[in-house]
C-alpha cells in the first residue's frame, strides 16, 4: 500500500494499528534521526539508533568492509563511525553535502552516487524502527531537507527514498527550519503575531529562518516565513576542518610530518579527535588532544578561548549571515527589537559562542532560547507533519479536536530559464526568491523564431536555479533540461508558447508546463499542452517527435 492508502485505512478504522509506523526522518550531514508518531501519547518519539552508545541519533556514516571471499559488508551508523580508523578509505561521512551533484564515491570497485549512499542511511534508520517492533509496517514518512537545498539536492533525497524502498511511503519533503518550528510550537506555545528566528545550525548547513505567527487558535496555526538566510555549506563540519588544519600544523611542528604524509588511518584519528575537541569544548574550558600516533607521542591543550580564536573568521561570517537574514526580510528589514525570540536548534548550536553572539546582536539575553532537544527537533517536527498529513495531529490542548498547521513558506532561490537574445545568453528569472510557495507559479509567453524548419517544431529549455542574487549564468545550478518536441510547424515568429514554472508547496520541487497559444487569427492554438518534471540526470523529452 502507498501512504495515501494507509491514510484511508486509518480513517476507515478510526485508529492506527499498533504495527503501523508514521515516521519523520532528519537525514542530516553528521547525524540522522528517525522518530515515530506515538498515537497513544499523540506526540512523536525519537528512536534510539545509537546501538547503546549513549546518543539517540545515528551518525550519517556509511562504511564498506571488503571481504576476501564475498561481496563485502556494509556498516552504517555509530559502529561505522567508531571504526573509521580501521577502514579509513572505505568510510563515507557527510554525504549530504554532495547531494544533488554527480560526484560519485568509489567503494569496492563500484561507483555510488550520493543518493545511493544516503539510501543506505535511510534503510538503517528504518531497520532500527523494525528492531523496535519486528512487525513494523511503514505507513508514511516525511523527510527533512535544508531550506537552502537546491532542486537537484531535493530530488536526490527523493531518489534516496526510492532506492531505500520507501518511494510510495514518502508523503513529502519538509524544510528543516519548518520542522524545527513545528516541533517547538507543540512544546512551547507560540503566541499570535510572534516573530521567531530559528537558527538551525547542523553539521553541514546553517538555516536562518524568521517566522511570523500570523494565525494561532485552537484549530489552526499559520506560520509565515518572512526571511530566510544561512548557507548550505556552513556547519559543524567546517569547524572540525579548522581544528584539523591546526592539528596538521602541530604534527608538522613537532615531528616534521606534512599533512600529505600522514597515513589514512592517522588522518582518520585526527578527524575523530578534531570533532571530539569541538564537542567537548562546549562543556569544558580546555581539552587535551592526544597525538598518540606520533613518535614521540605528545598532547596539546586547546582552550575554549584558543578554539574561538581559531574559528574567529567563521564566527564573524555566521554573525554576518544572521544580520543579512534580518536585513533582507521580504517584508522589509527587521531590527533585532522586532524579533520576539531566537530559537537555537541543531547539534552545532550547543557551542557557547553561538549564544554569546546572539546576546551581542540582540543585546537581550532573555530572547535567546535553546531547544530542549536541539539535535532531535527536526525529526520530531517532520513526524508532526507526517501525522498531520495522515489526519492524526491534534492540538497540544488535549480538549481540542484535530489541528491544521499551515506554513507560508517562500522560495529560497530565484528559479528561471536560460534564454538567448541574439548572441547573448542570460538567466531569466521567472519565480523570484521570497515568493510564497502558494504563489510560486509563474508563466511567460515566448515567441519562437529560427532559421530552420526544425527550429519551429522543437525547443530546448534549460531550467536553472540562481542561489545568490549576484550569481552569473555560469554560476547558476542546473535543475534540468527539457526538450519540447512536436510543436506545430509554422513560420518563424508565428508560434507563441506559454512556459510555466511552479514550485510545489510540499518539498519545493520545481515542475513545469508548456502550451501552444497559436498566433493571432492566422494560427489558432494547436492544443499542444505538455507538463514536465526536470531532472539533472537526463534531458526530459516531452511531446511527440
Amino acid at each position, binding site marked *: 500500500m502507498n501512504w495515501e492508502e494507509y491514510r484511508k485505512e486509518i480513517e476507515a478504522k478510526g485508529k492506527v494499528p499498533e504495527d503501523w509506523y508514521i515516521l519523520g526522518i532528519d537525514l542530516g550531514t553528521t547525524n540522522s534521526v528517525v522518530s515515530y508518531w506515538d498515537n497513544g*501519547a*499523540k*506526540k512523536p*518519539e*525519537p528512536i*534510539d539508533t*545509537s*546501538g*547503546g*552508545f*549513549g*546518543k*539517540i*541519533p545515528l551518525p550519517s556514516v556509511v562504511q564498506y568492509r571488503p571481504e576476501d571471499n564475498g561481496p563485502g559488508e556494509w556498516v552504517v551508523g555509530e*559502529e561505522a563511525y*567508531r*571504526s573509521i*580508523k*580501521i577502514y579509513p578509505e572505505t568510510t563515507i561521512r557527510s554525504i549530504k553535502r554532495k547531494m544533488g551533484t554527480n560526484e560519485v564515491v568509489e567503494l569496492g570497485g563500484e561507483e555510488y552516487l550520493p543518493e545511493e549512499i544516503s539510501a543506505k542511511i535511510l534503510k*538503517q534508520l528504518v*531497520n*532500527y524502527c*523494525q*528492531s*523496535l517492533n519486528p512487525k513494523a509496517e511503514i505507513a508514511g514518512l516525511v523527510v527533512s531537507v535544508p531550506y537552502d537545498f537546491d532542486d537537484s539536492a531535493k530530488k536526490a533525497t527523493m531518489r534516496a527514498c526510492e532506492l531505500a524502498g520507501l518511494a510510495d511511503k514518502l508523503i513529502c519533503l519538509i524544510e528543516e527550519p519548518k520542522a524545527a518550528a513545528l516541533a517547538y510550537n*507543540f*512544546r*512551547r*506555545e507560540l503566541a499570535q503575531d510572534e516573530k521567531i528566528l530559528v537558527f538551525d545550525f547542523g553539521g553541514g548547513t546553517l538555516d536562518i529562518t524568521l517566522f511570523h505567527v500570523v494565525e494561532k487558535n485552537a484549530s489552526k496555526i499559520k506560520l509565515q516565513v518572512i526571511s530566510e538566510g544561512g548557507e548550505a555549506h556552513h556547519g559543524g563540519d567546517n569547524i572540525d576542518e579548522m581544528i584539523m588544519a591546526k592539528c596538521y600544523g602541530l604534527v608538522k611542528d613537532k615531528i616534521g610530518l606534512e599533512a600529505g604524509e600522514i597515513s589514512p*588511518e592517522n588522518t582518520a*584519528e585526527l578527524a*575523530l579527535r578534531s570533532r571530539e575537541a569541538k564537542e*567537548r569544548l*562546549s*562543556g*569544558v*574550558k*580546555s581539552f*587535551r588532544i592526544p597525538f*598518540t*600516533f606520533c613518535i614521540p*607521542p605528545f598532547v596539546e591543550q586547546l582552550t575554549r578561548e584558543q578554539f574561538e580564536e581559531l574559528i574567529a573568521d567563521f564566527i564573524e561570517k555566521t554573525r554576518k549571515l544572521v544580520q543579512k537574514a534580518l536585513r533582507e526580510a521580504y517584508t522589509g528589514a527587521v531590527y533585532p527589537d522586532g524579533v520576539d525570540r531566537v530559537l537555537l536548534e541543531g*547539534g552545532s548550536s*550547543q557551542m557557547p559562542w553561538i549564544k554569546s553572539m546572539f546576546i551581542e546582536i540582540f543585546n537581550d*539575553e*532573555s*530572547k*535567546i*532560547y*535553546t*531547544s*530542549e*532537544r*536541539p*539535535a*532531535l527537533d527536526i525529526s520530531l517536527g517532520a513526524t508532526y507533519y507526517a501525522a498531520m498529513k495522515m489526519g492524526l495531529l491534534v492540538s*497540544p*490542548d*488535549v480538549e481540542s479536536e484535530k489541528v491544521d498547521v499551515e506554513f507560508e513558506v517562500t522560495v529560497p532561490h530565484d528559479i528561471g530559464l536560460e534564454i538567448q537574445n541574439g548572441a547573448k545568453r542570460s538567466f531569466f528569472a521567472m519565480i523570484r526568491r521570497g515568493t510564497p510557495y502558494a504563489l510560486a507559479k509563474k508563466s511567460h509567453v515566448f515567441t519562437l523564431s529560427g532559421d530552420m524548419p526544425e527550429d519551429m517544431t522543437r525547443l530546448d529549455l534549460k531550467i536553472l536555479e540562481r542561489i545568490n542574487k549576484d550569481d552569473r549564468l555560469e554560476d547558476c545550478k542546473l535543475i534540468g533540461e527539457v526538450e519540447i518536441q512536436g510543436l506545430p510547424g509554422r513560420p518563424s515568429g508565428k508560434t507563441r508558447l506559454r512556459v510555466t514554472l511552479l514550485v510545489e508547496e510540499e518539498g519545493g520541487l520545481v515542475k513545469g508546463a508548456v502550451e501552444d497559444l497559436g498566433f493571432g487569427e492566422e494560427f489558432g492554438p494547436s492544443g499542444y499542452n505538455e507538463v514536465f518534471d526536470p531532472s539533472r540526470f537526463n534531458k526530459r523529452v516531452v511531446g511527440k517527435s
Partner: protein
Amino acid sequence: MDWKKYRAHFAHNKIDESHFVLGVDMGNATSAISFFDPLRRVGEVLDISGGYGKAAAPTVLQHIADSGEWIFGEYAVLNANGADPLLTGFVGRLGGGDNAAESSVVYLKELVANCRSINPKAQIAGIVAVVPDFVTPEIVDVLRDVYRAAGYGDALIAVAEEREALLTHYLYNEPGASGRVMLLDFGDRGMRGGVYNVDGGEVECLSVNMDVDLSTAAVDEGVYDLFAGYYCENRGEGQELSAAETAQLTIFTHQHKDMLFQPKPTAKQARLYFNFTYPPFSRQVAAEDVWGIVGPLERVMTDFVAGMLGKIPGANKSVDTIICTGGGFEMPWAKRRIASLFGGGDVRFYKNSKGILAEGASLMAAERLGLLPDIGLNIIDSHKMPWDIGVQVGGGFYPIVRRGTWLGQECGTAYFILQDDDDKIVLYSRDEKGGEKRIGMAVLGGLPRRPVGTTKIAVDIIAKTAYDYMVNIRDVGFGEMFPASGYVYNGELSVSE
C-alpha cells in the same frame, strides 16, 4: 517566590511557558529533571545530556583545581584525567559528611539551571524532589538544606518517596485504577520493590524487598572488568594498569557499556573499537562474556521477585500490574527476565525508565500547585520502621536501625568501643518525638577481657518486624595489640507492642 504564592497565583491566572513546575530526581548515579507541560498536562523530561535526547545525566562533578571550573555530568565523566578527581556517589552519602551536601548543592544548581537555558525567563514555581523509599527523616532534612543552599528552599514543595512519584504517574494515566501493583526499581544502589493494593488513591503496601547486590553498579563493574581484560590481553604486558589507562578504560566503559545490551537491527555480536590506544584495535564481544555478567544477576532477579511475592500476606500471591523503572530496565535482558516471570501479564516498561520518577514528581508538584486535580494518594505501610533502634553512647542516643527504613533492610554496621568492663549492650528505641525507651539487651558472654577502652565491637541489627530484631555482634579487635578474637554473638530480640 514561595511556591504557595504561585499556587495562589494559579488559582486565578493561567500558567504560562515561563513557569516551571519541576520534578527532580537527583540520584546517586544518574539524575533527571522533568517539567509539567501545561498544554498536554503531562510530565516532560528535560534533555540534560547535551542535546542528544537522553533523559538522564550522570550525577558526577569534577572540579578543575587550576581554573576553579566545575564540570558536570557527561562532560565530567569524559574528562576523567587522573589529575582532577571525579566526585561521584555524593547523593548516597548525604548526611554522612565528606562534602556530600556541598557537592549536591553545586550539582542541583546546575540541574535546575537547564530550565533557564531553554527559557531565559524561567521562574521556578515549585519542585517536588524524589528520594528512595527507605531514606530516613534525617536524610530528608539534609536534602531540604541542600535545596535551601542552592536557592530553591522556597520552591521545594515536598520531598517525595519514589513510590509516591510512581503511583502518581500511574494514577494520572489511569484514573481510579484498582488492583495489585508491583513497583520494581532497578538502579545503581540495587533492586527495590514493593507490592501494593491500589484502590484509587488509597494504597496499602503488602510486601517489600531490597537487594543491594542486584544493581546496575554490579553490571558496570562486570563490564569494566571485561573491557579491561580485553585491553590487557591485546597489550600483552601483564594486568597492571597505569592511572592514565584506568581513566581511559573508565571512560571507554561509560561510553560502550550500553551497547552490549541494546537491541540492534542485526543479530551479530557487538564489536568494540579501542580507539584510545595506539595502534587501535577491535574486539568482538563474545556472547558468553556478556552472559557471564548478566547470568548470575538474572537468577538473583528471579529469587528477588519470588521473595517479594512470597511475603504477600494470605494465599493470593498474584499481582495485576508490574511497573518497572530505573536505568537497569533499559537493558533488554532485565526486561525479558521480568516479562518471562509474569508471562502474558501486564508488565510495563518505559522508554525513559530513568526519567519516569522525575515525571511522576512533576505531576505531584502540579497537583500541589492546583494545576491538576488531587488524586488523594494515601499510602498505608506497615513495612517501615516506626522508630529508631540504637544504643546510648556518652549519654546520647546512637541509632543503628533508622526510622523510615524498610523492615529487613541492612542499615550498615555500627562500631563501638566498650568503655567499661561490662559485657552487655543495652538497646533502646527512640520515637518520632525523641522519646527513648529501653527495649532489651544483648549479653556478650565469652567476650575476651581486655583493658578498658580496648574492646571494639561491630553491631548489625536487622528488623524482621517493627518488634522483632536480629542482632549480630562481633569482636573486631583493637589494633595490632588485640587482634579480633573471632567472637560472635547472634541473638534475637522481641519487644511487646
